[in-house]
């Protein structure tokens, strides 16, 4: 009989389950994986180097494009680093808006993760259901920032503008008649916050629906239980954060342990896994969606009751109002300087981290006192997770690689930067 040797297999970069541009070189012994060597960098855009050549505010838009399914959380990490270095305080209303949109982003991200993870493992329906709910949240993005995805909504010193009063409505057309439109506009008659509150009432029922499809599903459990087990000690060693760390049973969440913005005043719980397998990480993320929903509700209620400024009143960092610029010379100069030169950030270095949907998203900023960062380093959670790919899939079957990629919640925008 011929001697059977290990063979090498290329997984990706065009494989639909590779979640973007992952090229995974697998050394296989039959169906069993001996080594996995991820090749990354196919989406490398040198965001950090580009940021070194631009005034601080012009790089906020790049942050959206890092992890392109949780846009505002990336911005949050970046503007928090600048604010820390400048030593400026954000108005409390802006903090609530930020927290609300961080949690909306978390739901967006987890829905994307659930849909694609389900699709990879074979649960087609999840994908369609999750995108239905994402649509409402995308509308929330659009109503405050004008775009559905790359918002550039957070600015150092606050947010770009306050939440508008009314929600845009659908108009009758050839495709949708009056009756359809009335149904679609049911939640859109009131303010934007009413729309968000209405969503938070509908959403827990949707999560229950997802759970009836997956949580006790025999196929789902066969594909995820005891797959990609990571012990808490290894998870810490490997630099895991977020649901990957909590799935292994380590109780660590920056929103609780090192609270930023107004998280200390809000009521929510941190779900923690037990075994550290794909199934536990699934359960953790499902519960996180419910908790995020709870936080969004609290923020929306607070915002409805407490009007106020959403941007720092210092025109060195925030542009003056249009009407002021028509009248006042000083406002005119401020506007001109802010948009041509930007602001100089005092010399120093900071590290600011937020609890991103995927883990700890950190921004390390070195400033030499100029109007551009001297060095910007983005700590992407997915980078550390993917580096553990070899350890997580070793000894598993080929089909389990797909489950592990899914559970790691890989997005190449942030890994390749």
């Amino acid at each position, binding site marked *: 009989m011929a001697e059977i040797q290990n063979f090498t297999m290329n997984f990706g970069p065009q494989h639909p389950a590779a979640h973007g541009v992952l090229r995974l070189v697998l050394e296989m012994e039959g169906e069993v994986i001996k080594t996995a060597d991820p090749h*990354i*960098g196919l989406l*490398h855009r*040198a965001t*950090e*180097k*580009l940021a070194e*050549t*631009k*005034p601080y505010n*012009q790089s906020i838009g790049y942050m959206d494009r890092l992890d392109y399914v949780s846009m505002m959380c990336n911005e949050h990490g970046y503007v928090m680093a600048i604010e*820390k*270095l400048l*030593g400026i305080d954000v108005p409390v209303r802006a903090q609530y808006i930020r927290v609300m949109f961080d949690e909306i982003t978390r739901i967006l991200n987890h829905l994307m993760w659930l849909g694609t993870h389900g699709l990879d493992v074979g649960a087609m329906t999840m994908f369609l259901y999750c995108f239905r709910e994402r649509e409402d949240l995308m509308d929330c993005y659009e109503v405050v920032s004008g775009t559905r995805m790359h918002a550039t909504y957070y600015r150092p010193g606050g947010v770009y503008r306050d939440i508008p009063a009314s929600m845009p409505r659908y108009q009758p057309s050839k495709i949708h008649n009056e009756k359809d439109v009335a149904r679609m506009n049911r939640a859109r008659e009131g303010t934007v916050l009413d729309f968000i509150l209405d969503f938070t009432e509908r959403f827990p029922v949707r999560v229950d629906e997802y759970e009836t499809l997956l949580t006790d599903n025999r196929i789902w459990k066969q594909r995820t239980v005891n797959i990609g087990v990571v012990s808490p000690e*290894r998870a*810490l*060693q*490997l*630099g895991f*954060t977020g649901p990957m760390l909590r799935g292994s049973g*380590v109780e*660590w969440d920056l929103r609780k*342990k*090192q609270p930023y913005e107004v998280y200390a005043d809000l009521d929510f719980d941190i779900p923690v896994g037990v075994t550290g397998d794909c199934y536990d990480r699934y359960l953790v993320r499902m519960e996180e969606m419910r908790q995020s929903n709870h936080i969004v509700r609290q923020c929306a209620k607070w915002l409805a009751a407490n009007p106020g400024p959403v941007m720092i009143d210092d025109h060195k960092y925030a542009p003056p109002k249009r009407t002021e610029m028509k009248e006042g010379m000083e406002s005119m100069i401020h506007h001109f300087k802010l948009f*041509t*030169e*930007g602001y*100089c950030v*005092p*010399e*120093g*270095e*900071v*590290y600011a*981290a937020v609890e991103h949907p995927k883990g*700890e998203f*950190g921004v*390390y900023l*070195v400033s*030499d*006192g*100029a*109007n*551009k960062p*001297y*060095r910007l*380093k983005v*700590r992407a959670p997915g*980078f*550390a997770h*993917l*580096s*553990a790919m070899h350890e997580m899939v070793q000894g598993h079957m080929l089909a389990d690689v797909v489950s592990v990629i899914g559970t790691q919640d890989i997005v190449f925008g942030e890994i*390749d*930067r």
Partner: protein
Amino acid sequence: MNSRYQALSANLSARFGDAIEDVIQGPNDAHGELTVVVAKESLTQVCAALRDEPDFAFEMLIDICGVDYLTYGESEWETRSASNSGFSRGVDREVVIPDPATEYDSQRFAVVYQLLSVSNNQRLRLRVYTGTANPPVVPSVIEIWSSADWYEREAFDLFGILFEGHPDLRRILTDYGFIGHPFRKDFPLSGNVEVKYDEELGRVVYQPVSIEPRTLVPRTIRDDNRYVSADKESGDNG
């Protein structure tokens, strides 16, 4: 700087003595940010102690970041007041092309480690200067924290910093066969080569880049009186 970080700072100085060259506290008191400059020779001992000793217990290496201090504090906007030739446009830059054979300035390259202690809930930043060695080299901490693996590969790829003891120091983010270390300050933003499809050869070829480098917003450093620290003489307002 709150009391916890003051205690941590005192503990570090007492425990490591000469291995620590400098302790830098955050620019603003509220940050609770502590940077420790560690001597290159004692990096691995310090890291091992930081991970294992219960006073520190930094179980996690959050990030490794290479920094190139070549143009630190340099401004492109030289003119303070209008001269008879007007303001400078900030675009006439001298291109820095260091001789690859020479030694580096001892503080040119640094590696910055972000540590996190889950059990003590505190953070610490270590900075190691690579010294004059060309190519720059520091000891690897992969034996202490497994997460160092890809972070060190990234710093090697982008800055050309070698990590002594790393088992698999390959490029990670740049293309297969890439030449140079793109995040060094003497590497142009547009790169050195561009890719195009050559119809005659029937394949993709590399050629020198055709993009003219330009500066849209000059790099400016202002002596702003809001930022003048106590130890610095107050400069004129920008």
